[in-house]
């Protein structure tokens, strides 16, 4: 039970971050239009910040999509499978996704570590490794979520059709 509460807390934290970043994204993009068109100026750091925010929003969104296994798939075959086969096949593809995400997160983490030790600056004094941090974190979380989905495919009820395509 305590694990479930922890997971719920993490999800709410993610949601809050996501909403905050999206709000900043919209506000910055809007401010740039006003500044550019009315005052013929603009914030130098706004454009690169907006681009990094897009990356963060995308990965936070991808993490949210992984909660119910709602990433884009080809569901042609899976839909036609008999119920008895569907659960193990779904569990298998979940494990595949989890494995790939793990490898990806590992290599992304290596990149972040390299940037950290090289002290690369992304823009306006922001270290590159901070901007990139969401890539390993994001894929690690997505991987863990698919790992957790796999056994739930076998339980009847809430989890059984958790991977129903959108």
């Amino acid at each position: 039970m305590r694990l479930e509460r922890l997971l719920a807390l993490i999800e709410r934290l993610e949601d809050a971050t996501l909403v905050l970043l999206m709000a900043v994204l919209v506000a910055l993009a809007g401010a740039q239009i006003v500044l550019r068109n009315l005052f013929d100026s603009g914030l130098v750091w706004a454009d690169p910040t907006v681009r990094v925010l897009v990356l963060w929003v995308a990965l936070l969104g991808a993490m949210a999509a992984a909660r119910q296994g709602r990433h884009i798939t080809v569901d042609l075959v899976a839909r036609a499978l008999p119920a008895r086969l569907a659960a193990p096949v779904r569990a298998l593809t979940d494990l595949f996704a989890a494995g790939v995400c793990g490898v990806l997160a590992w290599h992304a983490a290596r990149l972040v570590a390299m940037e950290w030790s090289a002290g690369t600056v992304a823009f306006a004094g922001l270290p590159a490794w901070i901007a990139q941090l969401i890539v390993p974190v994001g894929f690690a979380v997505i991987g863990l979520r698919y790992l957790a989905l796999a056994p739930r495919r076998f339980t009847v009820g809430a989890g059984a059709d958790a991977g129903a395509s959108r």
Partner: protein
Amino acid sequence: MTVAFGLLLAALLGAPLFAVIAAAALWGFYASDIDPSAVAIEFYRLAEMPVLLAIPLFTLAGYLLGESRAPDRLVGLTRAFLGWMPGGLALVTLVACALFTAFTGASGVTIVALGALLYPALRQGGYGERFSLGLVTTSGSLGLLFAPSLPLILYGIVAQQLGVGRSITLDELFLAGLLPGLLMVALLAGYSMWTNRTQPLTPFTWREAKAALRAARWELPLPVVVLGGIYGGYFAVSEAAAATVLYVLAIEVLVHREIPLRALPRIVREAATMVGGVLVILGVSLASTNYLIDQQVPARLLEAVRSVVSSPLTFLLLLNGLLLLLGMMLDIFAALVIVVPLLLPMAVGYGIDPLHLGIVFLANMQLGYFTPPVGMNLFIASFRFGKDVAELVRASLPFFVVLLVAVLVITYWPALSLALAGR
């Protein structure tokens, strides 16, 4: 070869596509002795494309519009102005759906948001059940070719990243989609008017028109400003997206008060889920595409196809078949990101303009949405209206034939796509 086969199998069995592509890229780099962290470097390029900003912003605007009662007002408005014509309600369906899809991009949303309003209205207005079902299912993907639809933007982004053939801008792409999109609407409208020519007409009344205009007065400036701004060249696409989302937020949350503030986090999350799903595929595809180009796969593919197919016309014919098949199986965003990097170099090799290829690609994908027997919209409509998929297949077949004609015209008459963009 075994790895490629295994990955294909994983994709067919329903593994998330981003994971399949990422695995391919990781394996590819590993096998050719390149540090696999190159995949992460390529993925990070998502943060280096300024136009990408348009995708989360337009998606959010679309989800907000879908949550409000803007669809009711859109239907009311088109009904007041087009409802008096023969086949009037059918025209209303076509125009309202095309506009809504252009602004919301992902086409399943249109059937769910507008179909629920239009299908009962059509039935009440005396239109046949089969005709109404077919029309609503078909209209669910209409409008993909009009600015600022997300698939159009995504094609532009992918093509710009590849940099093969003549360069294209998003503005040119928006112009290119205009006439082909109108052709689709016009052909469907003609067919609908002809099949419903015996329907009794409802007269046009100024009273109703005024009421509809009044109800929609806040949304009315939106298409004018966004489309006028983009087509007129006043706005960059990402600026138009920012203006749209701010304006939609203001009118639906503050003026109409149809979206309570506490619903915003959920809507933001839903929009971001969709954006994230598309962009992770784009991100990992940047890596796999880079690897494919490094291995000269597109060039070899072109050579192989050229040894069999000599004329551009035959190539286009085969392309139509292939794209129809893909459109049935693949999500449109996934198809764009995965297939365009392979197709574009080939098409350029046959002397096809990248702008034209984009329009042909999307037109085919639109058709793929309801190609029997497995087009996605058939299932969405079946779920939404509680009808058998087989019934929907029968119902949408005549519309399929009409749109197939449109797609063929678009494919073999490049000027239709290229004339407005001046090339």
